[in-house]
Each structure stands twice: as C-alpha cells, then as structure tokens.
C-alpha cells in the first residue's frame, strides 16, 4: 500500500540526518532544557533561600563521607541485627511453645484417639506439620522485625546512599554500582534481590549481580548463623561478653559474604563476563520521614507474610522427606543413616560431618529448616535420648541443650565455624534458583549461579579445616 511512501520517508530521514550531523542529539537536549528553564522561571518562585535542601546536604555530607560512611553503615547494620536477634527471642519462644509443645502433642493425641495408622500419623504430623510449625516459629518473628526495619530505612532514603558508598568497590570489581541496592535487598531475601536486578541496564553486569546475590546472607540463614554463633563462638568469652561476641561473629560472616561478592564479581568480569563498567547517574533522593505505622503494617502484611507463605509451601514437603528417609529402611539402616555414613568421610575433609551435608541436601527447598534437620539427624546417629523419635524435627528449649546434643554428635568449634561458612557459601534455595531461571531464561547461568557457591563453600571449608588441623 504505502510501502513506497514509507521507504521514501525513511530515505529522506537518512539524508536529513547526514545534513544535520552529529550535534542533533545534543542540540535537541539543549532545546528541551531551554524550554524547561523558561517554563520554570515563569511558574516557580523560591520564597526564601534557606530550606531543608541544606539539612539533606548536611546529612549526606556525614553518611556518604569517606571517613564516616562505612562505620555508620556497619553500625546501622549492627543495630538492625541486634534488634532482630534480641527482639525475635521472645515471640519465637512463645510461638514454639504454642505450635510445638501444645498443638503438636494435641494433634498426636487426636491421631491416636481416632486410630490413625502410625505411618500416616508420623508422615503428616511429625513430618509435614512439624516442618511447617518450625518454619513459622523460627522465621516469622525475625522477619516481622527485620522487614519493617529495612523498609523504614528504605523509605527514609538510606539505600541509595549505601549504593553511593559502595559504588567505588563495585566499580573496582567490574560490576555495576546499583548492585549495592540489589545486594541490600538480598539481605532480606535472595529471590527478591534477584528480581530487583532489573534496575541494572547492562546484561553483563546484571548477570554478575544475579550470580553473586546469593552471597548476601538471607533471612533464612540468619537464624542458623545466630544460633551456632551463640552456642559455640559466644561461649569462648565470659558470659557478659558472649552476646557481643556472637553478634560480631554473625556480622563477620555477613561482611565476609560481601567480600566474596566483590571477589566473585571481579573474577567473573575478568573471565567469562568481560566488559566495560557502565556509568550511570544515581539520584540521591531527599530524605523523607517514613510513615511509621503504615510502613510497619504494609511490610508485615505484604512482605513478611508472602515470604513466610512461600517458605511454608517449600518446608512442608521437606518435612515429609525427612520423616520418610529416617523411617524407610534399606537392610538394617534407614536411608538417612545410610546417607550420613556415606557422606561422613567427605564431611570430615571439609571440617563438617555427614549429618550437616545430608541436612543441606534435604533443606534445598528452604534454608530455615537446616538446624532442626541437623538436630534430628544427630540424635538419630548418636542414639542419645532426646527429641521425639525417628525423623521428628524438634527444637530444644535452650541453646545449651542444643549445644550438648551437637557436642555429643562430635561437634567442635571447627565444625561450628565451618557450618557458618558453609551456610554462607552453598547453593541458593529452590525458590531463588527458580527465580534466577525466570530472570535469565538460561539453564547455563542458572547452573552457574547454583553450583558456583557450593564449590566455593567446599574449597573454603576444606582450606579452613586443613589449616585448623595443622595448627591445632
């Protein structure tokens, strides 16, 4: 129809483009800005030279300063963590009292009353129900504290300042400065952090951000870090300092994660993902007083409950699997025992043990259930009388009692430290793996992002174990 005319238009535009020359884009941009300036001049009046712009600038001078920027960042991180750790204790204890000590026996009683066969009762109540109850008791309180605190910081406008502070480091490692934002989101949930990488324009830098997001210690892993640090690291110093000592250990692991993020980003950008670092403008938005109650409400309803629901969906089948492998026998040993025995040698090389490795295999769906799985399996192998029977997940009332079981299972300070390292450096959870696939649409990169951290974890724990044993 109009094909000829359209071809003519395109040809004409090509001619005109040559006539106008290179300055076209700049001239156009200048034109737009000149128009904008004219319009603003006619419509906007500044009543008084003093304004809150100055206060913003003053705050920025401090929190993005070369001297104070980093220490302030760590202090804020420490305060948020401290509030999460301490604050989550009480509701956690209450929830586990309710879900594990009251409802669980009640369910068991009901099941035996109606004459439910032992295997169905075990599978449903000891397997599925307990895994879900565990995830709720352990995850809900810290998330309900961590997410609102994080959202308050976000609303206030702190996140772009973090990006500003870290920009230089990311640039040095060949990655995009906005990766600092996706890293921060990853501290809440890696899957959320990976979706957030869409703000990075360059596909190369976006892939780097996706692959390394797992080095942000996520919500499912904070409780593991905190518990193990409290039992083994906190116990190294007198009781009055043990809280600070364990907090320091946890922050140490989180910072180590950031170090790995930089190193791996650097490695990738020097090898398989070579390229120039793209420049970008990051607008530092004005500080806005957060709307406190609204933020609390929406971050609990929208973020916490959604993440919790996802964890439950993944934990329920995992609970079933744990119960099954502990109760199905091959010859005279259960599948769990058989797996643990065969992985023990490899575990020893890494300064870990078979139980931990099996727990990590079972807990791929949700990192939250690693500790209960470890406890349950440890009791299974050591045969000490605690807990509720084969394949039943449980939590002990005090950290001391948990420590006693673990020590009986042959745990040392090395096991604890390597578990903390391995919890930082292992494959992402299945939700995150699925999200990586959805975002990259590539089996290759999803595999890289899933396998790379495990390999790193093996190497790091192996080296730590060998050096430790040489020195000890």
């Amino acid at each position, binding site marked *: 129809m109009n094909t000829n005319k*359209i071809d003519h238009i395109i040809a004409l535009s090509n001619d005109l483009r040559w006539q106008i020359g290179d300055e076209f884009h700049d001239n156009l941009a200048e034109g737009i800005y000149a128009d904008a300036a004219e319009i603003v001049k006619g419509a906007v009046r500044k009543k008084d030279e003093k304004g809150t712009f100055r206060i913003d600038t003053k705050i920025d001078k401090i929190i993005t300063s070369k001297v104070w920027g980093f220490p302030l960042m760590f202090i804020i991180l420490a305060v948020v963590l401290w509030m999460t750790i301490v604050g989550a204790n009480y509701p956690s204890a209450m929830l586990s009292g309710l879900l594990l000590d009251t409802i669980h026996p009640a369910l068991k009683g009901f099941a035996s009353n109606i004459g439910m066969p032992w295997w169905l009762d075990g599978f449903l109540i000891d397997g599925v129900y307990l895994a879900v109850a565990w995830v709720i008791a352990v995850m809900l309180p810290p998330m309900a504290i961590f997410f609102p605190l994080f959202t308050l910081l976000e609303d206030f406008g702190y996140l772009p300042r973090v990006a500003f502070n870290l920009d230089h480091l990311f640039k040095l490692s060949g990655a995009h400065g906005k990766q600092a934002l996706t890293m921060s989101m990853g501290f809440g949930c890696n899957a959320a952090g990976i979706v957030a990488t869409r703000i990075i324009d360059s596909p190369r830098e976006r892939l780097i951000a996706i692959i390394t997001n797992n080095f942000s210690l996520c919500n499912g892993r904070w409780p593991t870090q905190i518990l193990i640090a409290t039992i083994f690291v906190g116990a190294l110093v007198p009781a009055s300092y043990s809280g600070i000592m364990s907090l320091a250990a946890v922050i140490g692991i989180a910072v180590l994660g950031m170090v790995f993020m930089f190193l791996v980003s650097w490695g990738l950008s020097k090898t398989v993902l070579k390229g120039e670092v793209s420049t970008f403008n990051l607008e530092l938005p004005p500080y806005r007083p957060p709307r406190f109650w609204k933020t609390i409400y929406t971050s609990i309803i929208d973020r916490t409950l959604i993440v919790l629901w996802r964890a439950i969906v993944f934990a329920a089948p995992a609970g079933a699997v744990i119960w099954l492998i502990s109760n199905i026998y091959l010859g005279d040993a259960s599948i769990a025992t058989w797996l643990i025995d065969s992985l023990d040698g490899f575990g020893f090389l890494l300064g870990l043990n078979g139980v931990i490795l099996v727990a990590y295999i079972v807990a791929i769906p949700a990192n939250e259930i690693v500790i209960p799985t470890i406890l349950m399996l440890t009791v299974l192998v050591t045969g000490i009388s605690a807990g509720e029977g084969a394949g039943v997940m449980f939590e002990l009332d005090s950290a001391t009692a948990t420590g006693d079981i673990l020590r009986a299972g042959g745990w040392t300070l090395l096991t604890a430290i390597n578990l903390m390292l391995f919890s930082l450096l292992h494959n992402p959870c299945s939700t995150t793996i699925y999200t990586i696939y959805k975002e990259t649409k590539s089996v290759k990169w999803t595999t890289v992002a899933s396998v790379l951290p495990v390999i790193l974890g093996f190497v790091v724990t192996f080296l730590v174990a060998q050096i430790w044993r040489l020195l000890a």
Partner: protein
Amino acid sequence: MEVKPKSACETCVQFNADGLKKLGVNTSDFDFVVALAGNPNTGKSTVFNAMTGLRQHTGNWPGKTVTRAEGAFEYNKEKFKLVDLPGTYSLLSTSEDEEVARNFILFGKPSVTVIVVDASRLERNLNLVLQILEITNNAVLCLNLMDEAQRNNLEINTRTLAKDLGIPVVPTSARYNRGIPELIQTISELANGKIVCKPHRIKNIPKNIEQALEKLSAEIKEVYPDIPNSRWIALRLLEGDRNIIETLKTGEFV
C-alpha cells in the same frame, strides 16, 4: 487549554468523590486506559496505590518499580485501568528498563497519561514531561510531593504552569492522599473529552533541525493522517531509532 462549561455541582470534587470505587487488581472490562509516567522516585507507585487501593511496594529509591503494574478504579460508573510504569528520566535514551515506559506511552495508546513530577525538582522533571507532550495529546501533570516543595519554600503557580504546558496541572501529596480526588476528576474529564489539551511543543530547536522535522512530519502525516505525534516520529527517525522504523513499516501506532 479549553474547558467546556459545567454546572457548579458537577465541577465539585467532593460531590463527585462518592463516585469513586477502588477496584484493586480487577482490571477487566475497562472503559479507559490511564498510564502513570514520570521520573524515578517521584511517587508514581504511591499515586497508583492511592487510586487503586492496591499496595504496590513503595520505597525511597530510584528504580524501585521494575515491571509494569496494573490496577483499576471506577469513577462515576466508568472503569479506568491504571498502568504504573517504571520511572524514566527521558524517552530519548536506548536503555532497556526505560523501554517498557517508552513503548507503552507510544504504542499502548493510553486514553490519558498522568505525568507524575517531583514539585521541588520541577525543572529537571520537565525534560521528560516535554518529551511525553510531543507524543500524546491527552495528559495531566500530577505535581506530586507538594508537601516537600512547601517545606523547601517553593511557591508554584499551577495556573501559569498549566497554561505554559497546555495541560491541566493537579498539585498532590499522594503519601497523605491530598489532591487524589482532584486528580481522578481531571483524569475522568480528560478521558471524556471535557478538557481538551493543547500540549506544549518543544520550541528551542535550531532552525535546521526544525525545518527537517517539518519536512518529515508533513510526509508522515500524508501516510498516517490520524496520528497526533508525527513530529515525535520524525524526531526518532532523525535519531535513527530502529524500533520506530520497524513500526512505521507495520503501522502499529495507528
């Protein structure tokens, strides 16, 4: 801008506020499509939430909205589908995250485009506003974050601004729900043709470019007489935008 006369009650926002129903994600059978565009971190998602009753995640950092979010509201028996676009500084660049917004405004043919700007950073925000006004005839400027502008002692004459831009201007503070009823009323009037815009077109362009634009735009109009944005298409052709060349061939934007 030309406003057709109405009875006193009809023009009153409070009178009409009764007609608002927030429909959340229920976006079926809508009468009009409304796009929310603007620079990053100007509160588009907050405006979106205020109108639809949804709770899109909001946060004080540029680049938070990465996908298109859709919601709906009903006003005086008419259903509006609202599309929250990722923030962009410009429609002239080629970056991918801005593509979502660019394509939607140009090809999604929204009935009304709401351009959300940060009132205390108006000059910088106008860069995008002026570009959008090259593309569409039906737009409203949502002068958001008015509370911050006031704290910064800025006085904005919305009538002068509306006259210069040729589109209605509604001051809002979406965080506190201020100005939202007025915004919805204006959107409805624009959609129903009760307000007719005469959008500003970029003036300060060197003569040689202006002449080239006129020449091209005249030819485009011959082929597609009904499109409102022949000048924008001419601009993009001069820039050598492959996307536009393709769509010109298929005629998708008609």
